[in-house]
């Protein structure tokens, strides 16, 4: 048995290791020095003020939100449908289909990005946003299929059968029995898909254009020239955003439920 002391020591060290970068970023965003310093030298909100004047960052944030919401919605709907199909027993070529849908997870993202770039050029898709939504849907789809698929595997088959002998038609079984049972998994995949999309750099690099630039790309281009505390300010706001998102979900649904702790 590991002694208690050393266990809590390890936990503390791990937390320090994981949270360290966050603390440095948050602290660094308040520094008066012209570069990120930790501990901060003095205290100022000027980097936040400077950020507020950068409309390009705000636009990028909105672009990223629109993109993440659209891609998440598309991936959740398509992925749930695909997972339902993959859960059927009498499905010829199921494994091939599954491998095909999961491939964005296995291929290097750069390869997927190049391929998407060519594909979208060939199709002459007029809007960069639409191209980005297609690309982000593609790469978030495997997360949805995985999560919802796992829930379907764990779903007691006799539930659907019980509904069927009771006289339920397929649509009723799907919407009143199966969907409520896998709702927590669907919610989890919404979170995954949103984060993957919101965070995505590699795919987006190939697909952004003059009319849209996602926030990660904006940050990326900015730090090519300078790493100043304004970037730390952006990051701090993003951390706050993620935190509020999780707390909001917790309030709305209860994360215990979302992560399937309770039935």
């Amino acid at each position, binding site marked *: 048995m590991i002694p208690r002391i050393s266990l809590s020591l390890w936990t503390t060290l791990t937390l320090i290791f994981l949270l360290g970068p966050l603390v440095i970023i948050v602290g660094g965003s308040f520094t008066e020095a012209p570069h990120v310093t930790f501990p901060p030298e003095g205290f100022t909100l000027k980097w936040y003020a400077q950020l507020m004047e950068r409309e390009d960052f705000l636009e990028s944030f909105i672009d990223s939100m629109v993109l993440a919401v659209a891609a998440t919605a598309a991936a959740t709907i398509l992925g749930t449908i695909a997972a339902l199909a993959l859960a059927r027993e009498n499905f010829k070529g199921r494994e091939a289909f599954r491998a095909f849908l999961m491939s964005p997870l296995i291929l290097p993202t750069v390869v997927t990005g190049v391929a998407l770039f060519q594909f979208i050029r060939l199709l002459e898709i007029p809007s960069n946003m639409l191209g980005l939504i297609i690309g982000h849907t593609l790469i978030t789809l495997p997360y949805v299929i995985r999560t919802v698929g796992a829930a379907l595997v764990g779903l007691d088959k006799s539930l659907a059968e019980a509904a069927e002998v009771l*006289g339920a038609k397929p649509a009723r079984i799907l919407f009143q029995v199966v969907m409520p049972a896998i709702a927590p998994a669907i919610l989890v995949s919404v979170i995954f898909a949103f984060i993957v999309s919101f965070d995505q750099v590699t795919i987006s690099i190939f697909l952004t254009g003059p009319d849209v630039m996602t926030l990660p790309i904006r940050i990326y281009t900015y730090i090519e020239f300078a790493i100043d505390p304004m970037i730390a300010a952006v990051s701090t706001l993003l951390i706050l955003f993620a935190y509020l998102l999780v707390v909001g979900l917790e309030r709305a649904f209860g994360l215990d439920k979302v992560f399937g702790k309770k039935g």
Partner: protein
Amino acid sequence: MSSLDIEDVHLWYGQFHALRGVSLSIGQGDFLALLGPSGCGKTSLLRSVAGFVHPQKGSIRVGGQDVVRLKPRERNLGMVFQHYALFPHMSAAENVAFGLKCRNVEKAEAEERVARALDMVGLSHLADRKPRQLSGGQQQRVALARALVIEPNVLLLDEPLGALDKKLRVQMQSELKQLQRKLGVTAVFVTHDQEEAMAMADEILIMRDGVIEQIGRPKEIFTAPRTSWAAEFVGSGNVLKGRLGPAADGARPIDLGPGCAFALAEWANLPADGEATAFVQAEAVKLAPANGSGQGLEVVSQRYLGVYVEVQAQYRDGVLRALVSPEEAEAFGVGSRVTATAAPTCVRPMEG
């Protein structure tokens, strides 16, 4: 509430022949128990009736109507699953109401029927609980109410009590039986448990590897198994194999070596002279102390079974089991010598 007739049903899962010509008939309001070892095809038969699997051959009629081509939802059956299969996000009342919703029963009528069904299983006070807030026995009752509220033609139960502990199981057995009788619903009940089948069924069907080994009233199954396999399976007595002697006092003795004196009262269908197989229930075996040491059979073990004591004695071909009262058992301690006999009417001929 209808009769159920199954005729020469064959079911293959790919290459595997799971049901191999099953035929049976149960009357309206009867309670049939399907009994058999694991993998013999009990669930497959039940699922064929329900319509989840499709026998390639044979007919299944409910109330005279052939249902083989009907979907499960068109068969109007009630089904109770081993793990209840209650819808986890619905309350007890919503679970019970589900089948009525599927049938577009008017709201007021549905509410009344749900209330009555819950009352029938004694759960009115828990109508708003979710399944996970109910005990195993309570979940079982909700599942039963859900299956019965639609007034099914036949009620199918696949080891419905399998997940309950012994005491609760016995209680549910009698509740279930009473309810079934009161409603007069035709029921097919799958179980592993001989005692459960005995306690509940009007008729017991013993299955083995996809065929019917024997079908009959519980008493018949337990006192006169048709084959030695069935006898072993129900485990209620002894299979005796020996040469038949000439008739005396209206019975023919069966030779089992020294210390055993068994005779058959019924031998019309047995060969005039030759080997025969017979069955005698453990309760019917009478023991007596043997006179003279080295005579008779040696008692090799004693086992308390509550009301009875099971005494095992070594005879020529194996171990003979007898059930005696605890007082009698004192005379037959391990190592003592006994003789064994039974009334000739209790020794039943069997098909090998």
